[in-house]
C-alpha cells in the first residue's frame, strides 16, 4: 500500500493520505492546541524534551506488542510483567548493586515472555486468555515477593539510565531510538519480519510454506518480554521505586492503544513501527497537555478511552476509503 500508483480515485487518495499523515497531523494538532492554550507550560524545550522522554515508557513496550499484534496475538500481561520484573530487579539492586538489578529486570521480563510464548504455542491456549491469566499471576507474584512493600531504587547507575543526559538529550530517548532501529531492522530487513507478517496474514498458509510458526511465536512473545524489560528498567529509574501494586498499572491498555492507534491492524499481517512510535507520543502529548491544563484526571481517563475508539474508527474509515476490507 505504500507505493501510490497513478490512476487512484480521489477517495483512495484521501485514504492513503489519511493512512500516511493522519497520525502525524493528530500529533501536530495536539501539540499546537496545547501550545496555544498554555504556551508558558507547554511550548518549551524542557517540556518537549520531557514528553519525548516519557514516551519511552509506552513507546518501548509497544514495540514488542506491535510484533505480537502483527501475528494476530495479544499480550495482556505486560503491565504485571513490568511490575514483577521491576520489583525483582529492584530488590536485587539493593543487595548487589544497580548493574545486577538491571540485568535481573531484563532477564526476568525475558523469561516471563518465554513462558507466555510456551503456553500459547505448546498448550494451544489462545494468547488472549493465557496472558489474561498471567496478568493476574504475575501481579500476584509481585505482591507476594515484596509482601506489598515498594522496593526503592537508589543505585546511582540505575537512576542515571532514566534521568541522565548525553549532549543535553536524555538517555531514555537514545535507548528508545536504539530499540526502534533494532526492531525496524528485524521487521523490514530480516526474514523474521516477513515470517511474522505471513503468520499474521494466514497462519496455516505460513505453516504449510515451511515456516516454523511455533518458534516464531515464542520469539515474538520473548521480544515482548525483552522490550517490557527495557521499559521496566527506565520506569523504575524515573520513579525511583518499583511498587508491586502501582508499577505498570493499566500499562497493557496504554501499550495496546499505542499499537492500534499507530495503525497496526488487529486482524494481523500489517502494521508499522513508525506509527506505534508516533502514537505513543500522541498519548503522552495529550496526557501532559491535559494535566498541564488542569483537566480532572477522571476526564483524562474518559478522553483516553475515546481517543482509542475514534482512532480505530478512523482506521476503519481509511480502509473503507481505499476500498479494502480488513
Amino acid at each position, binding site marked *: 500500500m505504500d507505493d501510490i500508483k497513478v490512476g487512484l480515485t480521489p477517495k483512495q487518495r484521501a485514504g492513503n493520505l489519511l493512512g500516511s499523515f493522519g497520525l502525524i497531523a493528530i500529533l501536530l494538532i495536539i501539540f499546537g492546541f496545547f501550545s496555544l492554550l498554555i504556551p508558558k507550560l507547554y511550548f518549551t524545550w524542557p517540556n518537549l524534551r520531557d514528553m519525548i522522554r516519557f514516551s519511552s515508557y509506552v513507546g518501548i513496550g509497544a514495540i514488542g506488542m506491535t510484533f505480537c499484534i502483527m501475528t494476530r496475538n*495479544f499480550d495482556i500481561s505486560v503491565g504485571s510483567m513490568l511490575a514483577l520484573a521491576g520489583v525483582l530487579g529492584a530488590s536485587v539492586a539493593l543487595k548487589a548493586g544497580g548493574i545486577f538489578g538491571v540485568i535481573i529486570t531484563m532477564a526476568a521480563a525475558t523469561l516471563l515472555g518465554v513462558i507466555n510464548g510456551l*503456553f500459547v504455542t505448546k*498448550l*494451544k*491456549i*489462545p494468547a*488472549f*486468555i*493465557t496472558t*489474561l*491469566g*498471567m*496478568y*493476574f*499471576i504475575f*501481579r*500476584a*507474584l509481585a*505482591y*507476594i515477593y515484596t509482601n*506489598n512493600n515498594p522496593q526503592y531504587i537508589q543505585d546511582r547507575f540505575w537512576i542515571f539510565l532514566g534521568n541522565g543526559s548525553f549532549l543535553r538529550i536524555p538517555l531514555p530517548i537514545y535507548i528508545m531510538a536504539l530499540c526502534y532501529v533494532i526492531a525496524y531492522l528485524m521487521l523490514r530487513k530480516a526474514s523474521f519480519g516477513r515470517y511474522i507478517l505471513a503468520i499474521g496474514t494466514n497462519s496455516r498458509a505460513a505453516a504449510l510454506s515451511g515456516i516454523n510458526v511455533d518458534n516464531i511465536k515464542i520469539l515474538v512473545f520473548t521480544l515482548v518480554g525483552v522490550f517490557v524489560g527495557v521499559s521496566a528498567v527506565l520506569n523504575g529509574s524515573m520513579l525511583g521505586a518499583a511498587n508491586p501494586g502501582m508499577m505498570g498499572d493499566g500499562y497493557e*491498555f496504554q501499550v*495496546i492503544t499505542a499499537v*492500534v492507534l499507530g495503525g497496526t491492524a*488487529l486482524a494481523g499481517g500489517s502494521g508499522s513501527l513508525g506509527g506505534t512510535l508516533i502514537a505513543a507520543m500522541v498519548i503522552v502529548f495529550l496526557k501532559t497537555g491535559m494535566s498541564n491544563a488542569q483537566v*480532572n484526571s*477522571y*476526564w*483524562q*481517563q*474518559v478522553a*483516553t*478511552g*475515546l481517543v*482509542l*475508539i475514534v482512532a*480505530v*474508527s478512523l482506521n*476503519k474509515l481509511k480502509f473503507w476509503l481505499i476500498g479494502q476490507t*480488513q
Partner: protein
Amino acid sequence: MVKFLKLYEKIGIFILIVAASVFLAIVSPNFRNLDTILSIIMQGSYGAIIAFGMTFAITSGGFDLSVEAIMGFTSVIIAMLIPSLGFAGSIIIAILASCFVGFLNGVLITKVGISPLITTLSMQVILRGASLIITNGRQVVISQKSFMSIGASKVFNLIPTPIIYMVVLFAIFYLILNQTSFGRHVAASGSNEQAAKMSGLNVNLIKTVVYILVAFSASIVGVIRTSQTLIGIPTMAPGFTLNVLTIAILGGTSLAGGKGNLTGTLFAGIFISMIYYGLNLLNVQIFYQMLAVGITLLFALFIDGLRMKYLETAKVKGIRV
C-alpha cells in the same frame, strides 16, 4: 475415551465441585454446616450471574471486558438517584442505563466493526472515568436502610437473596439459550458468522442484544453489591472481569464461540467461591486469591487443550466423534 471426554465436557466441573467438597468437609468442620455452604454459594453467585451474560457473549464469538465498570456505574447511579427517586425508580434507571451501555458496545462492535476487545476495553476505561466524574471520585453513602433488604436479607430466614436471583436468572438465561430460536441464532452467529449471515440471520441485531444481556447481568450484580454495602462505589470490584471470564471458560464454554454451557457456568461460579473459602481457611493474604484464579484459569484451559488435541487425533484416526 471419546465417550469419557464428551461426558467430561458436560459434567467435568461437577466432578471438581464434589472433590473440593469432600476435601473441605474433611479439613474444615465449619464446612459441614448449611449456613457455611449457603454463604459459599452466595459468594459464588455474583460471579456466576455476570458469567451467565458472559457465556452468551462468548457463545456469540466475542466477550465483554467492561462488566466491572458497569457494576460500578450501576452502583453510582443508584447512590446518586436514591434520595430523589426512591430505590425502585433508581434501580430501574440504573439498569436501563447499563443496558444502554451494552447497546453502545453492541453497536460499536457490529456497526462500526471495532473488535470486541478494543470496544469493551475502551468502554471499561470510559465508564470507570464517567463513574468517578459523577461522584467526583468519592464513595457515596446511601442513607435508605430499607434498600439493604434487596441483597442482604434471607428468604425463610435461611436462603440469602442473591442465591434466589442467581437461580431465577439461570432459569431465564438457560431457557433463552437452549429453548428459543434466539439462543440458537446466538450460537449460529458464534460458530460461523458468515454462514449465519448467508442464511438470513440479522447477526448485528443478535450480537447487540447479547451485549445488552451482558450489561444487564452485570448491572444486576451491581445492584446486589450496592445494596449489601449501602455505598455507591465508582471503582467497584477491580479485576472482577477476569473472574467472570474464568468462570465462563471453566464452565466449559468454548472460546471459539458457538457453544455455551450455562450449567457449567453456574457450577464454575460456585467452584471458584469454594477455592476462595479454602484459601481463607489457610489465612493467606488477598493476593493469593489472584494467583489461584489465574492458575485455575490456565489449568482449565490446559485440560481443555488436551481434550481438543485428543479429539482431533481421534478424528484423524477415523474414530467417530
